[in-house]
Each structure stands twice: as structure tokens, then as C-alpha cells.
């Protein structure tokens, strides 16, 4: 049998934390930061999905054009459309040009007029749908020149106006998501700053003893910095996990391309929120240090 160890044998084997390890307010603060992180993650994920949708629409619009042809005297509408499609098919940057028959044109009107609500005698413009090379698409002037050369009277719509609208909306959504994430980060920083000040006030006696024993302001601030960096990183991890789980659940129950055409999801989106816990830790550290230094210098 070994002899009992002297009482001081393991004394000081690991220095205790200079700040009391626990605070009753830590749980509430952690909850607040976790919620803010989760909301920031969802804002980023939502922004990315909306941006993806806008990029997809923009690409679709960019890779197609619509030409309305007007028949010449003695020419039927179908003949005019066929001539237009033939003229456009040979243009560089055009993959395919096809004349839309009346049934196809009527189908395009159904969202506005309703199914079966298009009267048979309603004059419908003859349209040519043009699929463009997505890498090197033909521009509107090249298409107009080809029509003129073939003596086809037609108007080219390259969807430029719609594309500009879609791109403007995409940019707005992207900036909105970034703004929301930044606002939530600022709210988290403010909450941590407030908690740091409250914590410093609550531990005034400890701080005074450290000061009087020769601790520099930055030494004391570092204690709060480490404490809140850890707390924030842990809360960030919880918030990130919560957002990731919610996003994954929506992805799993959603149809193939995502929960909504407006928000097409992808599993790779989850990588975007992976750094959140590190960012939360960094925000916690910076905010706590700045608040502690400000308060200590003012004391």
C-alpha cells in the first residue's frame, strides 16, 4: 500500500481561474447570442438561396430571346414565323430558333387570361423562340440584322429589361442578407459589451484586488476577453447548429430543387455558416476587451 500523499503534494498543480468560473447571467447571454447567431446564419443561407434563384433566372433570360414577326402582304403568320426562324437559326451565337405555333402562344397567355379563356378569334402575334449560346450569345443587333437581311419584319426582345430587374432584385436581396447578418453581429457585440460591463461591475472587488496587486488593465481585460470569447464561440456553435438543422430539415422535406422556387437550397450552402462560431468567438473577444478596457480606463 502506498502512503497517503502529503496535503500539498498536488497543490497548485493547475492555477485556478482568476475570475469566478460561473455567473448566473451567462446562460441568458449564451441564449441571446445563440439566437442572434442562428438568425444571422439563416439570413446568410436565405440570401444565398435567393441569390442562386436570381442568378438562375438571369441566366435563363440571358440565354434566350423572343422575336415577334409581322407577316408581309400575302403571307400567313405561320409562314412569316417560319421564315424568321430560318433566318435566325444561322446566326452565330444562336443554338436554336423555332416558330411558336398558336397553341404554344396561347399557353403563354394563360397565366394572365386563364386556361381556355383565349377566344379563338383573338389575334395573337407570331413569335419565334430563340435559344442562345450561354457562353457567347448573339446580341439583339445581330438578330435584327439577320431578320433584315432575310426581309422579315420583326422585333427582337433579348429580355434585357427583365434581366436588369432580376439582377437588381438579386443585388438587393444579397445586400439585405449581408446587412441583416451585420446588424445581428452588431447586436451580439452590443450584448457582449453590456454583459462585460455588468460582469466587471459585479466583480469589482476581484478587479480591485487584481489592480492593487499590480495587474495592468490589459491583463484584467484579457481575463474578460477569454471568458466571453469562449462563451460566444460556444453560443455561436449552438446557433450555427440550430440554423443548420433547420435548414437541413427544410431541404429534406422540400421538393427536389428546394423549399420554394424563390429559395432553391443546396447542401453546399451549409459551408457558408461553418465559420459562424469562429466569428462569434472573435466578436465576443473584441467586444469584451474593448468594453473592459473602456471601463477600466474610466475607473
Amino acid at each position, binding site marked *: 500500500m502506498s502512503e497517503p500523499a502529503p*496535503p*500539498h503534494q498536488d*497543490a*497548485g498543480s493547475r*492555477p*485556478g*481561474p*482568476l*475570475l*469566478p*468560473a460561473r455567473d448566473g447571467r451567462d446562460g441568458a447571454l449564451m441564449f441571446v447570442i445563440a439566437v442572434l447567431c442562428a438568425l444571422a446564419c439563416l439570413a446568410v443561407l436565405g440570401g444565398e438561396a435567393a441569390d442562386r434563384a436570381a442568378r438562375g433566372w438571369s441566366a435563363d433570360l440571358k440565354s434566350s430571346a423572343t422575336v415577334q414577326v409581322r407577316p408581309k402582304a400575302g403571307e400567313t403568320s405561320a409562314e412569316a414565323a417560319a421564315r424568321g426562324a430560318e433566318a435566325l437559326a444561322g446566326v452565330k451565337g444562336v443554338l436554336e430558333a423555332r416558330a411558336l405555333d398558336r397553341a404554344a402562344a396561347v399557353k403563354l397567355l394563360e397565366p394572365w387570361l386563364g386556361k381556355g379563356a383565349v377566344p379563338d378569334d383573338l389575334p395573337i402575334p407570331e413569335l419565334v423562340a430563340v435559344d442562345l449560346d450561354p457562353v457567347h450569345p448573339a446580341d439583339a443587333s445581330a438578330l435584327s440584322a439577320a431578320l433584315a437581311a432575310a426581309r422579315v419584319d420583326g422585333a427582337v426582345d433579348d429580355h434585357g429589361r427583365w434581366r436588369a430587374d432580376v439582377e437588381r432584385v438579386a443585388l438587393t436581396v444579397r445586400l439585405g442578407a449581408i446587412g441583416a447578418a451585420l446588424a445581428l453581429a452588431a447586436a451580439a457585440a452590443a450584448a457582449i459589451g453590456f454583459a462585460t460591463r455588468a460582469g466587471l461591475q459585479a466583480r469589482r*472587488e*476581484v478587479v*480591485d*484586488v*487584481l*489592480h*492593487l*496587486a*499590480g*495587474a*495592468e*488593465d490589459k*491583463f484584467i481585460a484579457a481575463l474578460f476577453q477569454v471568458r466571453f470569447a469562449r462563451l460566444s464561440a460556444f453560443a455561436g456553435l449552438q446557433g450555427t447548429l440550430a440554423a443548420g438543422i433547420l435548414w437541413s430539415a427544410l431541404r429534406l422535406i422540400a421538393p427536389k430543387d428546394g423549399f420554394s422556387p424563390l429559395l432553391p437550397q443546396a447542401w453546399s450552402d451549409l459551408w457558408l455558416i461553418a465559420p459562424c462560431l469562429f466569428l462569434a468567438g472573435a466578436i465576443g473577444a473584441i467586444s469584451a476587451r474593448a468594453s473592459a478596457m473602456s471601463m477600466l*480606463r474610466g475607473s
Partner: protein
Amino acid sequence: MSRRSLNAIPTDDPSAGPVLEFQAVALRYGRSPEVLRDIHLTLAPGSFHFLTGASGAGKSSLLKLIYLAHEPSRGRVRLFGRDIGTLARSELPWIRRRIGVVYQEYRLLDHLSAFDNTALPLRIAGRKLSDYRADVIELLSWVGLGARMHALPPTLSGGEKQRLAIARAVVARPDILLADEPTGNLDQEMGQRILRLLLELNREGTTIVVSTHDRSLVDRSGMPVLRLEGGRLYDEAVSP
């Protein structure tokens, strides 16, 4: 414990001048009347003084001025040759590390063990645990707390807290040691031991000021006495 091994803080040449000078110093709290008035005090390096006076005479306030817990409302304070009024905030910690204090109310950190409380000044000075561990254990054993190194202050008796506070104040071998009623809660034997420790530190060059009500302690030591009365300081060796 060797003085060399424990003193991490650079010190000035003691022969350079007094470690402490008060010139016409006064202190008031807020708008209240001055609790200290026209204090002139010079402490030579390696001196030992008792500070006596009735309760409320201002003994603790005088010590607070020395350990830089307060700034004087009037007058000039010089510590280690530096005018405290002109020091930058960033310089204060370096001065404070040269001062050890035994607070009347102990001011121990309740969440730290006796070992960690004692080692606090060394940790703050950036010393490594492996460097100071043996010294702290030896010191705690010496003040009779060898078996209570893991104990938290709330579990210690008044006398044990006082000994712990003394251990923390002397562990870094400060240039000035201020003790506010250091034997107030100790039995006679432990009081004698603490007095011997203070005298030993003084012999090694530490300037010591002990505030006390214990007249027998003063008489046993035979050291000079400063008396506070009505907010003014008198040297008992030269005043009636």
C-alpha cells in the same frame, strides 16, 4: 526562500533616496471634511514603523494613499523616487507590484484556493507556476496553512484568513510592506510568529509599516511609532 528567487520586480537602488515621501498631503472623501491633514512623512529604505491611533483616526486611509488606492486631495506623494501625481496610468501597476499589503478586511478572492490566493501577485507579475510553486508551499506551511492549501477562503477561520492575507502580501518580497492590523485575529503565539516574519523581511531590506491597536506588539518590537490623531501624523519619538 531566497529574496532573489521571489523578487521578480525590478527595484531601484535603495541608496538613491527615501522609498516614500509625503509632502503636505491631505485626503478627503468626496465633499466630507479632510480625514488626513498636512501629512509629512519620509520612509527610508529598510525602515520599520508602527502606525497607531484611535479608531477612525485615518490609519487605513493613510495606508490607502501609500498603496495607491486613493489619490491625495492635496500635497505631493513620491514613491520610489517617482511623483505619483505625474505617473501615467500604465506605470501604476509597476509601482504597485513593489508594495505588499495586508488588508484589514483581508480582501481574499473567495473563488481561489489558499494556494492560488497566495500566488496571485506572482501570477500577475508573469511568473510561471513551476518557478513559484515550491516557494508558495513553503510560505503557506510557514504560516501554518500547509494542510489547507486547497481550502477556499470562506471555509477558513478569521485567523487563517489573516495568515493567508499575510502570505499573499509577502510572497513577492515587496520593497514596501503595509499591514493593516495584521495580528488582530491571531493568538499570541501566531502573532509573535508573524512579527518575527515581518522583522525578518525588514532585516532583508523591506520597508514596513504596520498599523495596529496592539500596544504589546509595539512594545515587544521596540520599533518607532507613528501616531495619527485628528487627521495629523506625529512621530512618537519626537512628539509628546
